[in-house]
């Protein structure tokens, strides 16, 4: 590898640079796990409750109420955003040998920011819906639903926590890749 800045600069930065790369890969793996957990948990979030609404003679009339993630657009967006984020992270990790080019690394960094924004917006929208489902809004006459559909709310809450953890990991990854990109100027000019 040709270096125009003197050998000692390269050798000074190399172990630090390796640490940054290793940290980036591990953060990406952790973010992949977090976002895929969030997407999967929310996608399989469904609860059905059957109640007796009336009794005619001796026959009870049953009616079933379902709570599913498809009923709320915010949750649909949440599942989609986390699915896209986990697929993107998986793709980047699988294609790592092809991404040694500096131009491609800048592209990956920009796409990282886009995916981070996706996850953050999905988590924010789902969190506002979840807060409404738990506490309701008495001014708008919207009743909470979590007292009736407990399992739905618990699963949704765990998915939300996983998405927030994924968002924090993606933020750290963004900051670290900025550091990795700027100090790469010293070690490799044309890689």
């Amino acid at each position, binding site marked *: 590898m040709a270096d125009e800045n003197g050998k000692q600069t390269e050798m000074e930065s190399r172990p630090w640079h390796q640490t940054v790369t290793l940290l980036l890969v591990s953060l990406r793996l952790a973010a992949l796990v977090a976002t895929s957990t969030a997407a999967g948990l929310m996608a399989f979030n469904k609860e059905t409750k059957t109640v007796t609404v009336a009794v005619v003679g001796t026959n009870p009339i049953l009616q079933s109420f*379902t709570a599913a993630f498809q009923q709320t657009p915010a949750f649909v967006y949440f599942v989609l955003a986390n699915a896209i984020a986990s697929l993107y992270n998986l793709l980047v990790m699988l294609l790592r040998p092809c991404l040694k080019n500096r131009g491609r690394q800048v592209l990956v960094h920009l796409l990282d920011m886009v995916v981070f*924004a996706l996850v953050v*917006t999905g988590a924010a929208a789902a969190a*506002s819906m979840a807060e409404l489902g738990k506490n309701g809004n008495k*001014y*708008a006459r*919207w009743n909470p639903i979590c007292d009736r559909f407990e399992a739905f709310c618990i699963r949704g809450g765990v998915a939300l926590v996983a998405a927030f953890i994924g968002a924090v990991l993606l*933020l750290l990854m963004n*900051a670290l890749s900025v550091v990795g990109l700027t100090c790469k100027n*010293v070690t490799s000019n044309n890689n």
Partner: protein
Amino acid sequence: MRLFKCRVPIAAPCSITKMVKSFRVLYLLLRLLAAAAALSAAIVMATSHDSTTLLGITLEAKFQYNPAFEFLVIANGIGFCYSLIALFIPSSLLSRLVIMFDVIIAMLLTAAIAAAGAMAQLGKNGNTHAGWLPVCDQVPNFCDHAMGAMICALVGVVTYLLIVLYDVHMLLSPKLLP
């Protein structure tokens, strides 16, 4: 620390070239636009208020009655203050800190508008499965105000996106970093 001591070859001469100057002007204009958009979003949402009487019951709509709208007001207030502060920071050692905070504040604003958007969609269409009725027919002024505030916040978000892109560009070509 090792992080900020990377020796980068500086190819540009000592005096600021014309291109760098115009970039600086553009950067300042973007920050002013972001500050204005955030301030207008916060003010428009904070002044939204409507009430109606339905069958003897008064239905009142204020932004404080909804946590997502409160978050929008607070986040845009924080964005406005930060934009003003970032305008007046002497661009020397704190450049990298400003860049980090730019990303954080941009994400704060995007999260705020996402949450407010979810609430607004619910207020307009309701949710039949949960038994939640839409409220925008009863309080149309409030809904219009909220829509205006969200449009301003969206302009602020797009401006912050441009600011973050400019920051990344500045980091990757060190000649532009003061």
